[in-house]
């Protein structure tokens, strides 16, 4: 169903026959994709098709909702994340997350960035880490004089970059972004997109987006999700390829309809 041309040794995350259930409800079914290292992979598709659910399966955030479980495998660096011996806390430490709505802690800007590192027992120079994380998130110049102020005092776009800085500070390998720019204006969105291009040098990024142009602009690979008929309607990846293929000559008719706006 999905095609993949990425070389094996460059795959960070891979799903194998992944089904995700909310209780009895099969939300996402039969997903087989490989996420390449140091690339941006976009997940697109209509509302309610399970994009966010799939994204959360990558760092086991779904488990915070009682009754959620999966069938199949999510393999990260050769290790099935859903093995009994794997601690979800460890998974989330190595695969960070940025949420749709910026959610800085109601603490100082400094503390927002430092907290994650501190709980993992970071031994290095905390000031340095905070500065480098904020620099990577392209926020340092704006906040270097107000590090003691509350993270909530920043604008929406700044808050989202603070959340990215916070995720970077624990030095994950993968950053999952769930529509990180959906609540931002075009200028703030542009800054986040530029930032993602910078970040992909060091991190692998998986982004869920509703914005077709955004997916086309920023991502290297795109997974198209859609609800498929079959008893209950469950979401699945109907096509997965390089972004320019998905947007210019998709193999699946439904993908073409969707990316050209003829969907529905």
């Amino acid at each position, binding site marked *: 169903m999905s095609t993949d041309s990425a070389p094996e040794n460059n795959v960070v995350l891979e799903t194998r026959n992944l089904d995700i259930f909310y209780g009895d409800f099969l939300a996402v079914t039969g997903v087989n994709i490989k996420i390449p290292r140091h690339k941006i992979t976009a997940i697109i598709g209509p509302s309610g098709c399970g994009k966010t659910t799939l994204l959360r399966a990558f760092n086991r955030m779904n488990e*915070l909702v009682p009754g959620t479980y999966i069938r199949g495998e999510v393999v990260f660096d050769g290790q099935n994340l859903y093995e009994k011996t794997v601690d979800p806390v460890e998974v989330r430490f190595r695969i*960070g997350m940025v*949420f749709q709505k910026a959610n800085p802690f109601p603490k100082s800007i400094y503390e927002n960035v430092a907290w994650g590192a501190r709980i993992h027992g970071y031994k290095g120079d905390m000031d340095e880490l905070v500065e480098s994380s904020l620099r990577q998130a392209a926020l340092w110049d704006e906040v270097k004089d107000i590090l003691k102020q509350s993270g909530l005092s920043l604008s929406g776009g700044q808050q989202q970059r603070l959340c990215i800085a916070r995720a970077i500070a624990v030095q994950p390998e993968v950053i999952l972004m769930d529509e990180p720019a959906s609540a931002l204006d075009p200028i703030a969105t542009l800054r986040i997109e530029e930032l993602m291009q910078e970040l992909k040098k060091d991190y692998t990024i998986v982004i869920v987006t509703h914005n077709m142009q955004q997916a086309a602009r920023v991502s290297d690979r795109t997974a198209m999700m859609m609800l498929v008929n079959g008893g209950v309607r469950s979401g699945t990846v109907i096509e997965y390829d390089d972004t320019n293929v998905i947007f210019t000559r998709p193999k699946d008719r439904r993908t073409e309809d969707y990316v050209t706006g003829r969907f529905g």
Partner: protein
Amino acid sequence: MKAQGKENKEKAIENNIEGKESKATSLYSPFSNLSTRKRSGRIWQLVFLSATSVGILALMALLFNILDSTFGYVAYEAKVAPTSLSVDGVVLEDQTKTQLVALLQNTLSRGAFNKLNNEKSFESRSRAEVSALVIERIVKYQVVDSWPLWESLTRSAEIKATVAAEYPLAELKFVSWLTAGTISHPQSSEVVTAGIRTAILGSLWTILITILFAFPLGVGAAIYLEEYAVGNWLSRLIQTNINNLAGVPSIIYGILGLAIFVRALEKLTSGAVFGLVDPTTANGRTVLSAGLTLGLLVLPIIIINAQEAIRAVPQSLRKAGYGLGATKWQVIWSHVLPNALPGILTGTILAVSRAIGETAPLVVIGASTAISFDPSSPFSKFTTLPIQIYQWTARPQDEWRHLAAAAIVVLLALLLSLNASAILLRNRFARKN
């Protein structure tokens, strides 16, 4: 088929026209009933205003009633007229300490004098203290009659005439029943010297133990129920029970406290397990029992309020914490608790305010009504302000009711100051975030 379609079309057009016509006459009569709607709104507004007014009036009546009893005229009669105690023409007020001590020695029985000397030697007592003793032991002012504030102000001439006619020896004074003496004196059988120090200290000790017991336990239970417990039938049963316990009459908690703390755990609450041997307190009716009983009483309230506060912490904060690879406890400790703390403190303030005013459970577990020594440890006998007030208002003489009114003023002040300090504390935590 075709003809039918045409028919339908015509029908539809007809309907359309009809629709237009009915719209022109309109089933709504715009604005015609607006005044009626607004009038009913005004009527309800008046109802709500009067409800508020009744509340305010009741509060004012309460305050008036208390203050009315706290001040007013009092007619005193001395058992021994101070003028008869002059020595060589020197009036009582001007006599030296030595003269006053001599007076005590001559007037009191030897045993009584020695007892006073043993409590605190006369050498170490100041002149003012000795003078107070003379007033208390020899002059013995006694209240013969008393009037509330309103009467004292409006019928002052009448009162003066009455006193002059009925108690020719009495001295009429306008007094405040709430004085430094009322607060600092221990309980006594004479209304002139009786005070509420014992009761205030008893209340403070009890509340301290209540807070130490109920706050950590209540917050701990709330954290468990909100963050850890899985939502099965057992946790729902526990939740229902906690909600119901919050509404159980306080006297039932008194009976529970009597059975558990006073009787079953007597060795603990009397301090016997700590090697404390004191025949007056060894029966478990101690400050500790009272504090624990009130703690049980307010525990459900604290749990429910803390649960509400914890539930109000946005889920997005928890997710942010988990997303960074934090453990459950790290998320709770660093994010849930700091953000819930103002709410938890508010709930605790409400609960403690209730505990301060409780009387019935303490009566059941056996609070003393007349003790004159201060509680000094969790294993002391005790009385509390509400019990003292209850006991004084139950006496037939008016003057005790005046004293009770003064004690009520102190209780209200104590309550307000505890609340105010807790609110300040809460605001400090709220600002920090």
